[in-house]
């Protein structure tokens, strides 16, 4: 099992009731998309919001097809509304 920590922002954090969610994903999970799909299964109340979230590692967007970040942290960014 691989530990992944999801950082949750804005309405996603509100829905989850937490700013961070730790998930043990199966060794077969290889990509960011795999991990996000598993998060949706573990927390169904988030599932409908995840498609519209960008995934970020550090200060860069990562794509669903990218490998899991080495530090095991994925930030999930819902649609933005600054200004």
């Amino acid at each position, binding site marked *: 099992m691989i530990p992944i920590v999801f*950082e949750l*922002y*804005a*309405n996603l954090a*509100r829905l989850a009731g937490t700013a961070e969610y730790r998930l043990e994903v199966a060794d077969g999970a290889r990509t960011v*998309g795999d991990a996000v799909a598993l998060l949706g299964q573990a927390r169904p109340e988030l599932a409908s919001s995840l*498609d*519209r*979230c*960008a*995934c*970020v590692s*550090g*200060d*860069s*967007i990562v*794509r*669903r*097809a990218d490998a899991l970040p080495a530090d095991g942290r994925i*930030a999930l*960014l*819902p*649609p*933005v*509304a*600054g*200004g």
Partner: protein
Amino acid sequence: MDHPVLSHEPVAVEPLLELQSHPECGGLALFVGTVRDHHEGQSVKHLAYTAHEPMAAKVIRAVEADTRERFGVPYVRIVHRLGDLAIGDIAIVCVVRAPHRAEAFEACRYAVDAVKHGAPIWKEEFYTDGSSAFVEGCCIRDDLDESASPRPHRHHSHTSHG
């Protein structure tokens, strides 16, 4: 030289203008977005901005650089406020210095729109009836075309402060 582009404290406009610099510039375009007391029919009491700060700072700096390049202007300065804001507080400031007014106006508008649509900043509004909501925003996920899932809207029709 990297100026702060995110501020947890109230933003002062005057120091951002650089009026004593850029003698080649005859134009200064300034946009100041402030907190409005209504949104889509609801009465807004106050609001809060949160951000993914490392990426928001990176995006805003990229917008500044892109705007300078795209419009050929020497000075673009953007500061976005974070934290709890009252009605009338400054949410975003964008200053552009340019030789002439046309590119100053155009560059300023472009830069503000680019920040609104791309920087990971979120606005939670608190209404006079006691409820609150995050303002509907722009999806910044960039690989939706490769996804089998239904495509959410990617572009920007949300209304916002400023």
